[in-house]
């Protein structure tokens, strides 16, 4: 069996940068530390991580970034914590369940009226419909994924969120698929809140994520508890980020994420190289006979497809177990997008690349698909 080929980076990135393991272990072996509680290390890894994240997100004040376990937690903090002027909320059919499920729960609790804007056949939100509904409904909040985790199609966030602002609403961007991959600037993107994860294209460990909250927005905390300071208060302190960060933080993991961000700054990914490998994969897949979901315009390094004669789940299993091509098959936790893509009920197989993916790896994936469809060479 040849070496496994990892093409599931939209789920979590692999491999990780060299400093990650060493940095996490050094903090696990060090005297415990939590800023404001005890100890006085030379540097506060949480603060250091927050500063680096602020640079990546184009945020002036690092204190406006609350650290969390993952994007799902960040999105829940935002969606449950906002005090909306009206119950009207707009989102898209391209959203991940980390957005949809909190929204469906809030709807069942009677706290919001939810309106979902459909996608086109590439997985991009229908721009005209979004703008029309924004004008007509004047939502108090609009939530949108920066890029589809199924097709990689990047949404024109600045335009879509500008329209929401013009109608008086707030905006929440799910940047899970783009942080570390695309240049982000929360202000330019018109994002009042921005949720991200550390373990995908920021290359950090699982268990890390965060939420940017624009100055002037006050969220009710989703969780409450100890903060190490202001212990006399009955409720969470008003100051960010501690307002949204109760409990003991995962210091070693965020120290590791900070090391990954440093490494990434010193070794910036080559987008032309990634794009070239993505096109090589896409061309090869089409030649092999895969039905690739075509995406034009800005996109992340994802190819989703189905294989004639193969059920999607079987294709994913055969690729992974039969050929060692580690990928993802099914609905990808984004169930609503598949209607527009025409991939119900089974969903699609997804190959998602990273800066580390090589020509040989994508060639191995194409060869596996070709053999599944046409037999041995």
């Amino acid at each position, binding site marked *: *069996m040849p070496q496994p080929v990892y093409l599931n980076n939209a789920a979590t990135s692999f491999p990780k940068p060299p400093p990650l393991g060493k940095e996490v272990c050094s903090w696990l072996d060090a005297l415990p530390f939590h800023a404001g509680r005890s100890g006085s290390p030379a540097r506060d890894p949480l603060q250091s991580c927050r500063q680096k994240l602020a640079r990546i997100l184009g945020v002036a004040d690092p204190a406006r970034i609350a650290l969390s376990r993952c994007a799902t937690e960040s999105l829940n903090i935002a969606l449950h914590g906002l005090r909306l002027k009206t119950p009207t909320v707009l989102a898209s059919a391209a959203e991940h369940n980390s957005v949809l499920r909190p929204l469906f729960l809030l709807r069942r609790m009677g706290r919001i009226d939810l309106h979902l804007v459909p996608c086109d056949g590439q997985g991009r939100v229908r721009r005209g419909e979004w703008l029309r509904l924004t004008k007509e409904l004047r939502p108090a909040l609009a939530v949108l994924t920066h890029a589809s985790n199924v097709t990689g199609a990047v949404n024109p966030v600045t335009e879509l969120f500008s329209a929401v602002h013009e109608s008086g609403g707030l905006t929440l961007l799910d940047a899970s698929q783009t942080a570390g991959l695309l240049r982000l600037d929360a202000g330019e993107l018109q994002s009042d809140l921005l949720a991200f994860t550390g373990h995908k294209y920021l290359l950090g460990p699982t268990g890390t994520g965060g939420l940017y909250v624009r100055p002037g927005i006050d969220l009710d905390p989703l969780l409450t508890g100890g903060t190490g300071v202001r212990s006399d208060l009955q409720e969470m302190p008003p100051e960010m980020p501690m307002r949204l960060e109760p409990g003991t933080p995962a210091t070693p993991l965020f120290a590791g994420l900070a090391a990954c961000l440093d490494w990434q700054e010193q070794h910036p990914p080559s987008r032309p190289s990634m794009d070239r490998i993505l096109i090589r994969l896409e061309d090869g897949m089409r030649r092999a006979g895969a039905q690739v979901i075509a995406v034009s315009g800005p996109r992340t390094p994802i190819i989703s497809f189905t294989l004639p004669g193969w059920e999607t789940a079987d294709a994913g299993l055969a690729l992974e*177990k*039969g050929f060692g091509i580690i990928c993802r098959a099914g609905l990808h936790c984004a169930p609503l997008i598949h209607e527009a893509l025409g991939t119900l009920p089974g969903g699609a197989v997804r190959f998602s690349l990273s800066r580390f993916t090589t020509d040989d790896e994508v060639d191995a994936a194409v060869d596996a698909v070709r053999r599944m469809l046409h037999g041995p060479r």
Partner: protein
Amino acid sequence: MDLVEIRELEDCFDGGSKLEYRFSAAIGDEFMRRMAAGSRLDFFPEFPRPFFKIFHGNGIQVKGVLGDSCVEVYFPRADMKKIRRQFEEEIGRLLPKRS
């Protein structure tokens, strides 16, 4: 060879369920063919690890690769409890006996 673990993977759109059955040893050609006796077998021996899918008459589908220690099994919604129990009894009879 023993059945050592059964793990739920996911529920399916049609109301069925998918479970993973893990055995104490790798699945070989003989065990696969015993599982497939009287059923349709799609077999891809040319893959680096040969892939198989067995379609039982009662709607159960068993998928895996030779050399691996687990299979994925799909159970249709209708009579799920009953056919799952029957499948597990059958698997117990088919497992290669320890020498």
